[in-house]
């Protein structure tokens, strides 16, 4: 089991389980990759433009471990 912190932003925020607060959802999972988590939480894969693990951009198949902080973003921009 790994305790992870899932952080969803922009339009993805509303898709997290109800207990999430301000887009942050902490939970324990048996899954071993970000993809597993995304499937477990029923998040839309096609909307995940940016995936960050502990602040570093990764791909969907990235393995996870206890204590990871995972940020998920749809396409965004500004400047």
């Amino acid at each position, binding site marked *: 089991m790994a305790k992870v912190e899932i952080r969803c932003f922009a339009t993805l925020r509303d898709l997290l389980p109800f207990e999430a607060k301000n887009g942050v959802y902490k939970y324990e999972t048996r899954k071993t990759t970000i993809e597993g988590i995304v499937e477990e939480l029923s998040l839309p894969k096609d909307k995940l*433009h940016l995936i960050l693990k502990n602040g570093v951009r990764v791909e969907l198949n990235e393995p996870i471990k206890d204590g990871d902080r995972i940020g998920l973003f749809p396409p965004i921009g500004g400047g």
Partner: protein
Amino acid sequence: MKIWRVDLSNHKVAQEEVPEKYQPLGGRALTSQVIYDEVDPTIHPLSDENKLVFAPGLLSGTRAPSSGRISVGSVSPLTKGIKESNSGGTASQDLAKLGVKALIVEGSSEIDNLVLVIDKDGLRLEKDESLKGLGNYDVGDKLRNKYGDSVTVVSIGPAGEYKMTAASIAVTDTDDRPVRAFGRGGLGAVMGAKGLKAIVINDEGSSGVNLQNEDAFKEASRKFSKIILGHPVSGEALRTYGTAVLINILNEAGGLPTKNFRTGRFDTADKTSGETMTETIKERGGKPSHACHPGCIMGCSNVYHDENGEYLTAGLEYETIWAFGAQCEIDDLDYIAYFDRYCDDIGLDTIETGVSFSVYMETDFMEFGDKEEVKRIFDEEIRSGTPLGQIIGSGADNIGRVFGIDRVPTVKGQSIPAYDPRAVKGVGVTYATSTQGADHTAGYSVTANILKVGGEIDPLKKEGQVDLSRDLQVATAAIDTTGLCLFVAFAVLDNEDALPSIVDMINAQYGTELNVDDVSKLGKQILKIEREFNEKAGFTKAHDRLPKFFKSEKLPPHNVNFDLEDDKLDETYKF
């Protein structure tokens, strides 16, 4: 089109034919060329030898989407180099419709509070003592009363009159509010030094913009609109959350400069995020999306109401929220919105002013996070131009000098904005090498570094950053010539049909036969003359460097420093 010129030293106005070599230029290409041709690089920026050159972009005034951006060129009192500052609002379209290729303001008047009125009959100077000391909101109200509700007002607030080196020039938006600005480089002080308080533009009865080939223009412009609207950033994200949506991504990526560039994460960043802002705006009946000029289809702007549901400010941007927020460790959006309103009204660049406060917070006189004291300084010191107010309004570099602080995040005298160059190295290259001083817009490497737009380059590594920054600096200079909002770049970088359709629009409008290669040639030409100007003003390689602490101090959470070698940085301008 004509070049309209006003000489404030002897109150003379003139309309001149456009010299052939200026014909294909607009926006930044034209402002930088005129400054290069007409201004001695060694002058004092506040002397009567400096000029302000306003030029609408090549496509401004047409129905090309989001094409209402205007450039002003000058010698900056902040960087002491050449400056192009770019603004939205309604000025660009109005000037273009009146047939103004460029407006050159030169000399300086012995009397202050002059108003330059521009309409279909030409230009004239008037004097209005009642404007003295007024903020941009009141200036606009008074001038609309006098000259009509639909005029555009370009004005300076008290900061410009006090010649503070962070002073901006305000431009009114579609709702007649002075919330768009030529923000960077302190050009409000140049306008103040000339005695010019405002420019009133009335495009009523103007002949409009002439199109050589209307059908071809329509087709190209329709195609371009489709590309913009079809891109997830320019077609959707900007409108939904504004630019402030970047707070959370930069925070997540560990590149949100916090407490004067000490860490890349701000614990309570979300309180100031685009998501929180949008929710707050909706709850209070403001507008989460707003266009700064008619015809902008991206609508990244907004209207922010206070707790009572009353209008407070508009165009609350990522950089502003960062400058008064994470950079000063303030996580109260209402205070930040108040500071934004204050900067717009008094006429100060929000980035420079926020960073100024953060450097002042390094002294014993103020603590980080003290929002009440920031407010007090705005209300009591800056507004009335006390010595402290004058210092804070004169930029981070000056504050460091006056108070003996060596942690000053500036390049060429201009404050580094909202992306830490250690964790977003591509933009670090831009900060260091741009002719404009530290300026994220000059080569927005955040695209490929963080946003996965226009490719992917690891933001924490040094590989590829120089090429990325160079390409973007060239492309940006070209886009700043068209009058298109830089945010079209999100679509341009990802869709190869976008640039050709921009070229098609220009060709259809002017009857030219430019091709895509000419665009990058133009971009390079602009950077070359800007750089040459700066060299003549005394700039050397040593000015193309970041402050030392970015090299020596590691930035949490990634614990990275800025490790690009000096000779690598020097390759940026090799083209």
